[in-house]
């Protein structure tokens, strides 16, 4: 592979997907309906909410293919760059590809331009990628992520959800996506306050995923046997930080104990 050099008028600029198109190295588009391929892994429930220091994002770890669990430790909430994260729901294959390309695009832009994209610019990029996936979406491989991050210029957390056509909607308080989003979203809706602190926000996200797992078969709960817990991360002025499993284990223990207590009385 030769080093890509372009004439000034023909330069792909700081866009990695555009570069990939010029080189011809992008993945081939799907040409048949996904139904013909049988059940494919799908990723499920993710939530994100704003709190005083920034945003918290959380996602369960289960991927399902039809009625079977295909993967127990999938990471659907991933760091996009230092100040933002993506949570994915939908067809796992294209979603993982999209996230990989998105992470790379943010880094590529930062290196080529010498400065990173604004948070809104990042959301816009993701929107374009989802739009680019529309053909696959119509064949049954839809990807609907959440994008959240800390806006350094406005000094607060911001979050967006998307539809399969790339429609981009900024939410003020919280977002939920995936099969369990109805339950998870309702829990967050009832518990969300403007002055939510870090601890309460993480607890609320854990509770939301718990309730989604309780009511939706495609959403995985905390797996005590294997020690697999949801991915929960905060993004603040200090950047992306993942909540460690010991902390989550304690929170779920506490949650289970309080639920048992509630049933007894």
């Amino acid at each position, binding site marked *: 592979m*030769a*080093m890509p050099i372009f004439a000034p008028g023909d330069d792909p600029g700081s866009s990695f997907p555009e*570069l990939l198109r010029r*080189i011809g*190295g992008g993945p081939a588009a799907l040409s048949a309906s996904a139904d013909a391929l049988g059940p494919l892994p799908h990723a499920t429930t993710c939530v994100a909410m704003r709190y005083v220091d920034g945003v918290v994002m959380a996602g369960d770890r289960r991927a399902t293919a039809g009625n079977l669990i295909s993967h127990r430790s999938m990471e659907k909430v991933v760091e996009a760059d230092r100040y933002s994260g993506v949570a994915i729901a939908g067809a796992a294959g294209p979603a993982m590809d999209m996230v990989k390309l998105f992470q*790379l695009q943010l880094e*590529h832009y930062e*290196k*080529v331009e*010498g400065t990173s994209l604004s948070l809104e610019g990042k959301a816009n990029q993701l929107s374009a990628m989802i739009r680019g996936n529309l053909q696959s979406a119509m064949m049954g491989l839809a990807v609907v992520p959440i994008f959240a991050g800390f806006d350094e210029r406005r000094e607060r957390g911001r979050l967006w959800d998307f539809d399969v056509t790339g429609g981009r909607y900024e939410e003020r308080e919280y977002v939920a996506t995936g099969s369990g989003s109805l339950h998870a979203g309702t829990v967050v809706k009832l518990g969300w306050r403007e002055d939510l602190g870090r601890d309460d926000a993480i607890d609320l996200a854990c509770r939301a995923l718990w309730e989604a797992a309780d009511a939706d078969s495609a959403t995985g709960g905390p797996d005590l046997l294997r020690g697999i817990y949801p991915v929960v991360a905060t993004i603040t002025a200090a950047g992306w930080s993942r909540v460690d499993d010991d902390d989550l284990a304690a929170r779920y223990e506490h949650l289970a104990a309080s639920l048992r207590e509630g049933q007894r009385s």
Partner: protein
Amino acid sequence: MSMPFYVAPEQVMKDRADYARKGIGRGRALVALRYVEGIAVVAENSSETLRKVSEIYDRIAFAGVGRYNEFDQLRVAGVRAADLKGFQYSRDDVDARSLANQYAQILGQIFTHEMKPLEVEILVAEVGQTPAGDQMFHIQYDGTVFDHKEFTVLGGDADAILARLTESFTDGFDAGAAVRTGVAALAGPDRSLPAPDLEVALLARGNGRRCFRRLDDAAVAALLTAT
């Protein structure tokens, strides 16, 4: 019809080399040297925005001297080549040696086939998982590649700077000592270079996935005053 004068190929190459060397010699120099955690790159550069040193990939840095627009084009080409390779294969497959070879091809091609050679010298540095894996490739305007283990100098007045650096370099510098040694070699005995006239970046093993870290003026000043 006028006949073009015959010019011997030796003369053509010599003229081009002189032209390129003159362009590079006008610019300010930079040094790269090894220290315990990786590689430090110190450049004399009073601009806050037009960078000579930058990140190519997780463990790879780029530095250029000479004409800014020319080495910046090479820098962007390197970022693209590295990101494409990492995307198509794996992040572990991106290495400085292959990039250096590609740069050498381009520079050599332009030197022999174009009217004007590129008036640049570039450095591709990679920090290994262990100090034994650290690599520095110095590529000249005509595509000649040198690999260095300890330190290298690019740009104008390189011979004098190299002589000073050869004298002062020892193995096992920490970041501060490496930067101070680099600055002293660049400045020479008669000048002192304050932080705003310097551009300093570290390629350090301990920086996480992306090893490249640029130091701002305050951090550079702090390193210069520490003893």
